[in-house]
Every structure is written in C-alpha cells, then in structure tokens.
C-alpha cells in the first residue's frame, strides 16, 4: 500500500496490517496527525486536535496488540468526534460562543464505547452551531470546507466529520442527526453515514437540539467501516431515556449475504421534488445496479408522505424549548441565523406542536405498513449536490427541506451511500432506509451496492 493510500485504507485493511506487524498504531496515528497538520488549515474540519491524547491512545493500543489482543476491530483506529459529544477534560464547544470554554467532566456514552473498543481519539470535529446554525464568515468557529470543492459546503451539521473522512484525516467519526446531519454531510462529501434507529445509539452526553428527533451514529468511508463502529456503539444506555433494550445483532457478518431476493421500495413523491437531473440519473443507475445484483425494485407510495414537512415544526419548537433561557438572556451569543431559527420555534403554538406529533404518528404507521411489503426503501439522500458557500450565505437562502427529515420523524434506520459523481466531480448519494432496528439489512444493501461499484476508490485532489 503506497503511503498516499494509507489515509484511505479501510478499518479491516488497517487491522490486517496491525496483525502482520506491517504497521503500528503509533506509526498510523503519527501519519494522520502529520496529514491533519498539513491539510486541515485549508479544510477546518477540526476544532481541537488532541495530538498527545492520540499518541497515548495509540501506545496503549500498541501494547494491547503486542499482547496478541486482536479482539476489537477498532483497536488502534484513529477517529474524531463531532464537537457536540462531551469529552472529559477536552474542550467541547458545540460550535457555539456560549460553550467556547466548556471542558466537560464526563465523556458521552458513545465516546466511552469507542474508547473501550480501543479507538484512538484524534480530536474534535467542527459542527454547525448547536448542530443547527450556519457559520458565516467571521463566526468564532470557521466553517469546514468540502474537500471535493473548497468553495462548497460539506453539508451539516456534522460538517467536520464529513470533511475529515473525505480528506483522509480520520478512519471513522461520530456525527449526530436531527434532520439529516449525518446523512447530508455523507452525501455531499462522498462518504457513508448511518442514522440508526431512534434509541439504538445513546445520546447521553451529546448536546440536545430536538430530543424527539435527535439521533447519534457513525460516519466512515465504507459501509463495513460503519458497521464496525455501530457494533461498538449500539446497545442500551440507562443514561438516555430513549435508549432501547432491543438486543444488538452482529452487523458485520451479514454484510456479505448479498441482496438477491430482497425487495427495494422506491418512494418518488416528496423525495423527487426539485431534484437535480444529475442526482436523479445517479440514483436511477444505482437502482439498476441493485436490480442486476438480484434485488426486486418497485415504486411504492406512502399515503401521507407530505406530512413529513411537519418535522420542521417539531424541530423548531423543541430547539426553542431547550435553548429558551439562553436565547432570552444571551441572544447576542447566538449566531444570527441560528437565533432566528430558534426564535421561530417560539412562534409555534402548543396545538400546532401536538398536531405535528399526531401527523408523525400517522406517518410512522404508514411507513411501517409499506415496510411490511418491502425490505428497504430507497431515495436520493439529497435532491441536490453540495451548494456553494456563496449560495448558502445569500441572505435570501432559506431552510432547505431535504430528503432526510422524514426518517427522523419515523425514527427508522437510514444509510447514505455514495452512488456516483456529477460532471463537475461532486459526490452523489443514495439513501437506504429499513425497518426499526434492522440496521443489518440496511447495511447489507448498502455494502452489496458499494462493493459492486468503484465510487469508494475516488478521493478528492488535495
């Protein structure tokens, strides 16, 4: 493996090299830290690089490997954490001036679980302000850039996680997803992102945006790498009131079972409104590939899918409720766009919020009914490729609806997988959604498609 390929190796490849003693965790971590030092000033993926901590973690992993401990596939694997995950003794900003000096005394549960697996902590990755605002020029925390085109957004709010993975600055990352904040950056950055089932991964120690919509989950460059991360993350956590006791299956072994005989339902209403022709073309080609691989692909209807738009009302109302004290006492410490969005949540009546939740219950029932007839749903992850910063910074730029929010409404597991590139070289992505707690099938479909294509072998020219 050439040195310039090492940053894009898979977790499985790295583990094999560790076992052969062809590479050590300390060598790998040093290589990544040097790459971060060289490339990140132009990308702004990291808020904090924890070099000393990373080397200490790597030395501990090296010692364990030296004892012949190969029990965890994450042992010695360098990862980064979105900066809304609390990290004990390490600055955790939430991308906000309000928390610019916050040093948590506890780790988020997800951080603890990856550390127990032996992952090496490279640092904290930039997030949009409180996972919702946009960082305009002059913001205390500079916006991350899209490695495929530095004039474009990497998506958000897990912007640093998406940018770091696309640039080969980490082998895995944690994101959070309230309306698409894992899957959006995965789509725009040409990587893989999984929003697991609501309750599958703990949110304890993760800053809240909208508690009935918030999910945590893994981001990586391949579906298998995501599966390794999910395996370490999933499971009950009493510290998160939404955490499920559903048993955790093996997510890795079933990946190789293929898709022959699986039924893929394509939802066209809602998800194709305003779609870019290149996105549509890439998506249709992905469906053709799934058919060639043996899946049955058919269009399906979700009766009340337009109700999914009510997700924004739930998000705004809950975000305001959570941040109300600071919004009233320190409004100047919120970015202008974030403040406006959150204050809009104060203008939603109690009746409207309750009706939105009732629509959500209906949508969940409708979607679950469709998922009794098909194994997974497929849609484009985003109707458009990554926008330019110029577009997003336009004062008239609104709040995009997107294709990801409906699955935060329903809590279903949804995976974003690269499915091609535009003529201008921007990544495209397919979203695969499954039944509650059936991440295994979602990952299996994603992995089978991914392995039948070569999109994962392309990397940005940095």
């Amino acid at each position, binding site marked *: 493996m050439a040195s310039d390929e090492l940053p894009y190796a898979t977790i499985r490849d790295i583990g094999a090299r560790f076992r052969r003693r062809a590479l050590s965790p300390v060598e790998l971590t040093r290589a990544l830290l040097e790459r971060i030092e060289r490339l990140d000033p132009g990308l702004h993926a990291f808020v904090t690089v924890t070099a000393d901590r990373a080397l200490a973690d790597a030395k501990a992993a090296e010692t364990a490997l030296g004892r012949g401990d190969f029990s965890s596939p994450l042992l010695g694997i360098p990862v980064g954490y979105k900066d809304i995950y609390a990290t004990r003794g390490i600055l955790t900003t939430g991308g906000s001036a309000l928390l610019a000096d916050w040093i948590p005394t506890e780790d988020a549960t997800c951080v603890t679980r990856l550390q127990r697996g032996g992952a090496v902590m490279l640092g904290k990755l930039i997030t949009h302000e409180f996972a919702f605002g946009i960082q305009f020029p002059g913001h205390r925390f500079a916006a991350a850039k899209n490695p495929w085109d530095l004039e474009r957004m990497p998506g958000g709010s897990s912007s640093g996680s998406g940018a770091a993975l696309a640039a080969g600055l980490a082998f895995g990352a944690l994101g959070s997803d309230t309306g698409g904040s894992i899957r959006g950056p995965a789509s725009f950055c040409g990587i893989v992102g999984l929003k697991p089932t609501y309750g599958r991964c703990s949110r304890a120690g993760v800053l809240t945006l909208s508690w009935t919509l918030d999910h945590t989950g893994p981001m990586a460059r391949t579906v298998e790498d995501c599966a390794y991360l999910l395996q370490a993350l999933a499971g009950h956590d009493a510290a998160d009131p939404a955490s499920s006791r559903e048993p955790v299956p093996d997510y890795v072994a079933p990946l190789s079972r293929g898709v022959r005989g699986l039924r893929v339902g394509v939802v066209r209403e809602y998800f194709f409104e305003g779609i870019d022709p290149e996105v549509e073309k890439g998506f249709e080609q992905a469906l053709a590939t799934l058919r060639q691989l043996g899946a049955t692909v058919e269009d399906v209807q979700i009766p009340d899918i337009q*109700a999914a738009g009510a997700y924004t009302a739930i998000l705004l109302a809950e975000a305001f409720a959570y941040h109300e004290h600071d919004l009233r006492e320190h409004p100047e410490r919120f970015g202008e766009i974030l403040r406006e969005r959150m204050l809009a949540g104060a*203008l939603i009546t109690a009746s409207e919020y309750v*009706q939105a939740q009732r629509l959500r219950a209906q949508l969940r*029932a409708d979607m679950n009914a469709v998922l009794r007839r098909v194994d997974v749903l497929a849609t484009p992850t985003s109707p458009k490729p990554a926008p330019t910063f110029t577009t997003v910074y336009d004062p008239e730029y609104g709040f995009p609806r997107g294709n990801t929010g409906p699955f935060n409404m329903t809590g279903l597991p949804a995976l974003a997988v690269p499915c091609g590139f535009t003529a201008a070289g921007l990544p495209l992505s397919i979203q695969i959604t499954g039944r509650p707690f059936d991440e295994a099938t979602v990952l299996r479909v994603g992995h089978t498609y991914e392995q039948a294509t070569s999109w994962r072998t392309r990397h940005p020219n940095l």
Partner: protein
Amino acid sequence: MTLEELRDRMKAARVEIAENRLELVRRLLTDALRPIHAMDSRKHRTLEPAVTFDAGRPRGDHGQ
C-alpha cells in the same frame, strides 16, 4: 401566514426578530406549518399515553 400574524405571534411569545429578517422567518414557518394546517384533526389518532407501566421491567424502572 401573513407578516401581521407573524408579528402577533412574536408579541404573544415575547420575542424580537430583526425587521429585515421577518419575511424569511415567515416563509420558514409557513412551510413548517403547511401540513399541520392542512390536516383534518378528526382523522388522526391521538398520541400515546404520557405514562405506561410495564410489569416486565426491572424494579424502579417503570414508566417513561
């Protein structure tokens, strides 16, 4: 939602938003509330009970 209704809501909620941003907020709320205002509230189920008790759960872990 009209700008006048937006201002009424702001007054009731005791929040202030810059005058030059009101139109954007109006559009945001109009889009967010469209499905809610279009629904027939008689045709949708009520929400889950606020509290459920499950005898199968461990002691001290009843209720959500």
